[in-house]
């Protein structure tokens, strides 16, 4: 009899209404008869609450919202049906009985209509039903399921949130401008940190919010992109931004793109701004380039120095075997001096370290031949290579021909900063107790290498005196250039 609502239609027909406050069906008012017939003929969920006892009738659609409470609730009081949420329901049903309709946009139910719990959403309207004299007889409610719309809205919200996160997480600055005057609609954290944290830009035009870029031509570029739809992309673009802690101007370099954003019909509605502050990375690249240039220069100078040492060695050698040995010793000394430079970083070599490198090689700790004294003075890289070589040549010569060629001889090595001006370095090598010294007629490669002095110093000199009681060598240089890193 009620094909649209077989379940509730059967209940309705089989119910003994005379035992309820509504009384036998044939005595029902025309309003109730009409509404029940509409309800049981409808596929839309419907509910009738009737009479002072709020007797409840509903169709199959509504029954699904009642869950386990159906079928027991059918024909009983509305309060018994919704006792657990009566605090929420009572005011609106009371309003309806007092003649006030209520509509509710979104009520959530967990329904089992498909065999598993399912989130559903409905819109309700409680409508008072009156007799011809205006007395409220009951309430009629038609429900509309809005689950699909709610889910779509929720998915859209989730997606919007996801896109917002994508923009927030982007390592670059992103801003969205709308309209021909380029009003900020959105900007991510990175964009704020680029233009200056705490600037108030949303809802303002670029010209108002970031006024300093107007005279730099950026608004003209935006106008062009908005007008033509052609993207603007630039790298290493200089820009002045009032981004300092007190809003002071700073010069930065940015990679920048402006891209037109279009509506469905293709008309341009705004501009997507993507920008990245590349000031620091570009500065790093430049300094890396400078460093590699500098390394190349140093290497070529080192090769020139090795070339000079090699040719000096070969030029003055008695034979190839001794040339080979002297050259390898000299290169080993340079290599050790380099180690000292590298160990503690540039500029960390000291005169004492270089002296110790020499005595490690030429002195005997059990019977010391060297007496050394002097301050722990810093020495620049270039002079340190020369000084190592000079000390090596002096020691080699002393072992071969000088004080260290006999058991009784010794070397006094002292260095100091010359007072009172304290602007010159001085080192004095004095041999004693050796054979009587005679100035050689032909100078060997050792004394020639010594006479080349301290590389990298201004006014650096190394002078050998062939005193009969012992060879003496004085090495001096201007202190500032002696200690400077080049």
């Amino acid at each position, binding site marked *: 009899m009620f094909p649209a609502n077989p379940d509730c239609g059967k209940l309705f027909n089989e119910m003994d209404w005379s035992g309820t406050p509504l009384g036998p069906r044939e005595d029902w008012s025309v309003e109730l008869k009409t509404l029940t017939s509409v309800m049981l003929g409808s596929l839309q969920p419907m509910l009738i609450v009737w009479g002072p006892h709020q007797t409840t009738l509903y169709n199959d659609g509504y029954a699904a919202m009642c869950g386990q409470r159906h079928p027991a609730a059918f024909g009983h009081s509305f309060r018994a049906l919704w006792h657990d949420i009566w605090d929420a329901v009572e005011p609106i049903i009371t309003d309806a009985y007092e003649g006030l309709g209520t509509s509710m946009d979104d009520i959530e139910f967990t329904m089992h209509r498909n065999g598993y719990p399912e989130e559903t959403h409905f819109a309700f309207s409680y409508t008072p039903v009156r007799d011809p004299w205006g007395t409220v007889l009951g309430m009629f409610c038609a429900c509309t399921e809005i689950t699909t719309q709610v889910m779509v809205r929720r998915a859209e919200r989730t997606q919007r949130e996801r896109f917002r996160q994508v923009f927030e997480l982007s390592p670059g600055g992103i801003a969205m401008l709308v309209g021909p005057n380029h009003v900020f609609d959105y900007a991510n954290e990175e964009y704020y940190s680029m233009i200056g944290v705490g600037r108030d830009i949303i809802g303002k035009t670029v010209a108002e919010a970031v006024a300093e870029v107007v005279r730099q031509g950026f608004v003209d570029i935006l106008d062009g992109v908005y007008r033509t739809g052609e993207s603007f992309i630039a790298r290493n673009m200089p820009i002045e931004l009032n981004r300092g802690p007190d809003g002071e101007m700073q010069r930065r370099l940015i990679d920048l793109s402006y891209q037109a954003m279009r509506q469905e019909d293709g008309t341009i509605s705004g501009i997507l701004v993507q920008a990245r502050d590349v000031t620091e990375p570009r500065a790093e690249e430049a300094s890396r380039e400078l460093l590699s240039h500098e390394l190349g220069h140093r290497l*070529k100078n080192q090769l020139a120095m090795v070339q000079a*040492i090699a*040719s000096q060695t070969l030029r003055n050698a008695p034979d190839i075997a001794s040339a080979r040995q002297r050259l390898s010793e000299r290169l080993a000394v340079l290599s050790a001096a380099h180690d000292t430079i590298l160990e503690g970083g540039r500029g960390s070599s000291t005169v004492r370290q270089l002296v110790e490198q020499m005595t490690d090689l030429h002195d005997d700790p059990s019977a010391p031949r060297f007496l050394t004294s002097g301050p722990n003075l810093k020495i620049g890289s270039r002079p340190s290579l020369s000084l190592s070589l000079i000390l090596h040549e002096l020691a080699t010569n002393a072992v071969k021909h000088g004080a260290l060629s006999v058991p009784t001889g010794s070397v006094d090595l002292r260095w100091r900063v010359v007072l009172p001006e304290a602007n010159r370095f001085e080192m004095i090598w004095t041999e004693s107790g050796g054979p009587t010294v005679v100035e050689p007629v032909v100078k060997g490669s050792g004394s020639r290498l010594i*006479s080349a002095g301290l*590389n990298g110093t201004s006014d650096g000199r190394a002078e050998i005196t062939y005193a009969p009681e012992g060879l003496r060598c004085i090495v001096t240089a201007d202190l500032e250039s002696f200690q400077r890193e080049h």
Partner: protein
Amino acid sequence: MDDHPRHSPVLVVEDDGLIRMDLADALSDLGLAVIEAGNADQALKVMDTLPAISALFTDIDMPGSMNGLQLAHLVASRNPACPLVIISGRYNPADGTLPQGAVFLSKPISERLLKRTLAALKLIAGDAR
């Protein structure tokens, strides 16, 4: 090779004593008279005491009031005919930074290249190729 220099001396300006010594040795081995200076300021003083130099060999990076490039420009302005050889480990100088006609050599300089350069500048006899 003639043991007696036939020209005015060549001036070698280089702040690295070893490299200067070696270049001076190589040049005098080729029969040239050589005067050495440790920087541009010394070089100017040396030139004041000489009637002429037959060529200038100068490093670029040096301490003092001017670098080797500035010295070369100064010498070129005083004596446009003086051969100039600029030597450095640092620069491959761009066109226009060297005085006109100056030769650039990159450190370290091979003996062969040095001979060829001297021959091209007509400082020694030989093949300039």
